[in-house]
């Protein structure tokens, strides 16, 4: 009997066995009937084994619905932001204008200074050779004066960007409110509680979360925050702070690496597990009355000049407001409330690109 025929007969015997008619299917098998019977019987035992196992949703699985629901909410939020009218998301003064303003001021000025220095030195040397030391001083003075005048003319012809220089100063200071009356971009989440909406959409955001440790195993544990949302926290050699023990209440600062996976940079025990002596005296994080988790935007939030900000203070920020903000409250990266995109995520915490994602059928 060929292999294909054996496979076909076995498959029929298995299906027939499910309906109690295996003998009919096996009647066509000659020398392999015994083996076919054995394998078909094993298949029936596999089915029986499967039937003994519950297919219902376990309590843990029911709890994990919160993870999926949160991902759905983030996706909804990201979609709403993506579909917001472009004008609402555009800042009053685009970032590139500020860049151009700074560059247009600094480049000609630098060139002018270089010309003055190089030109003066070169002219002086040439003059000394050509006319002798006695006339050098007056020649250098004449040449330098001419170079300075040319440089001054060059500077005077520079465009005045934005109509005034307050705009430029805002690159490192307080941004101006947009002319359309929408909320001004702010430098950090602390300044504007509503900015948590924009902060949520930032890729690979830094978070500070507080919750209870469970399923601690090796370098991972599950952190359940007060709203019931669960985060899978990964630690490694670079993680600082305390060891997270089962049942302990900890504060974790780290980065979302996809979904609800959080890579911890720092772990601090806020309260020891029940029954254990509380060795920590860390004051608890002030929390909003509704128990909302407190994702915190940190250093990358400040300023529109894209330079690294001050060190993250790891203090909790305002409560995350998952409702969309008012029109004009959406600030794109690089302006006010958002740092530059780092390309490490899609901003909504899903689809972390680890290769396990769905393939289009």
């Amino acid at each position, binding site marked *: 009997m060929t*292999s*294909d025929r*054996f*496979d*076909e007969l*076995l*498959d029929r015997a*298995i299906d027939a066995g499910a309906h109690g008619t295996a003998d009919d299917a096996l009647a066509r098998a000659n020398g392999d009937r015994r083996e076919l019977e*054995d*394998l078909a019987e*094993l*298949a029936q*035992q*596999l*089915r*029986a*084994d*499967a039937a*003994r*196992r519950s*297919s*219902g*949703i*376990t309590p*843990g*699985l029911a709890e*994990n*619905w919160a*993870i*999926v*629901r949160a*991902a*759905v*909410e983030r*996706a*909804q939020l990201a*979609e709403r932001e993506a579909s917001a009218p472009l004008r609402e998301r555009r800042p009053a003064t685009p970032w590139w204008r500020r860049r151009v303003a700074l560059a247009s001021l600094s480049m000609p000025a630098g060139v002018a200074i270089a010309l003055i220095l190089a030109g003066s030195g070169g002219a002086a040397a040439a003059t000394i050779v050509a006319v002798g030391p006695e006339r050098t001083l007056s020649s250098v003075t004449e040449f330098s004066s001419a170079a300075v005048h040319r440089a001054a003319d060059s500077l005077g012809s520079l465009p005045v960007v934005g109509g005034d220089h307050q705009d430029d100063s805002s690159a490192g200071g307080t941004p101006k409110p947009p002319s359309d009356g929408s909320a001004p971009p702010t430098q950090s989440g602390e300044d504007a509680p509503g900015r948590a909406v924009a902060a949520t959409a930032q890729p690979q955001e830094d978070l500070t979360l507080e919750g209870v440790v469970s*399923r601690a*195993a*090796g*370098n*991972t544990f*599950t952190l359940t925050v007060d709203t019931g949302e669960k985060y*899978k926290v990964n630690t490694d050699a670079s993680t600082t702070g305390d060891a997270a023990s089962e049942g302990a209440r900890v504060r974790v600062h780290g980065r979302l690496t996809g*979904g*609800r996976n959080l890579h911890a940079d720092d772990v601090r025990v806020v309260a020891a597990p029940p029954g254990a002596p509380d060795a920590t005296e860390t004051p608890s994080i002030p929390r909003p009355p509704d128990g909302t988790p407190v994702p915190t935007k940190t250093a990358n939030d400040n300023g529109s000049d894209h330079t690294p900000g001050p060190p993250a203070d790891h203090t909790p920020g305002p409560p995350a407001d998952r409702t969309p903000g008012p029109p004009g409250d959406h600030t794109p990266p690089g302006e006010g409330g958002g740092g530059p995109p780092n390309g490490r995520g*899609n901003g909504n915490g*899903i*689809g972390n690109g*680890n*290769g*396990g*994602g*769905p*393939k*289009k*059928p």
Partner: protein
Amino acid sequence: MNERIFLRPKTDRHHRQDGDRPRGDDAAEAELVARLQALDEAAWEEAYQRHAGQVYRYIYFRLGDQHVAEDLAADVFVKALAGIKTYSWRGTPLLAWLYRIAHNVTADYRSSAARRAAHSAGDLGGDLPERTDVLGELVARRDMLAAIRRLTDDQQQVILLRFYQGLSNAEVAAIIGKPEGAVKALQSRALKSLRRFLTEEMVRRSA
């Protein structure tokens, strides 16, 4: 070992062995997919309630760790959410797509050496009862799962999808991206290997 599958549906409703499934179900499934693509939270809850248990079972049988299986099952839905916009429903059940994601998630998990160390295989069988009569029971559940996990990746998939999830050959073929003939061959080889593993285990215990 084929750790990752990239596949197109190789079956349509004419070849499906559960062809008695009414067209109304197809319409309902298509509508559910449309609602999922619209990020309707109620639709996602419905899909989770309907399929999370099966996805969990599939992962649990392959990994043997209840907590990990629960977390990865949720991860399957999060990844499905990420890809739902590009998913096009062509008559193949949504669950088949979820199984494919579950397969990839499981493969990713297995390939992670750190995680494998953290969750050692000591949890095989989980809360299953201890067997009492080794020789009298060919397929004690604990041994059966351990034996299944000794199969090749493709063979595991076929056994779990055919007998533990109750899918037809055509549906299994659509999920693993192989023709039905290959599914039958894998099924045949898997059963032979399982019989050998179980026999070895019986001999070892009786010695």
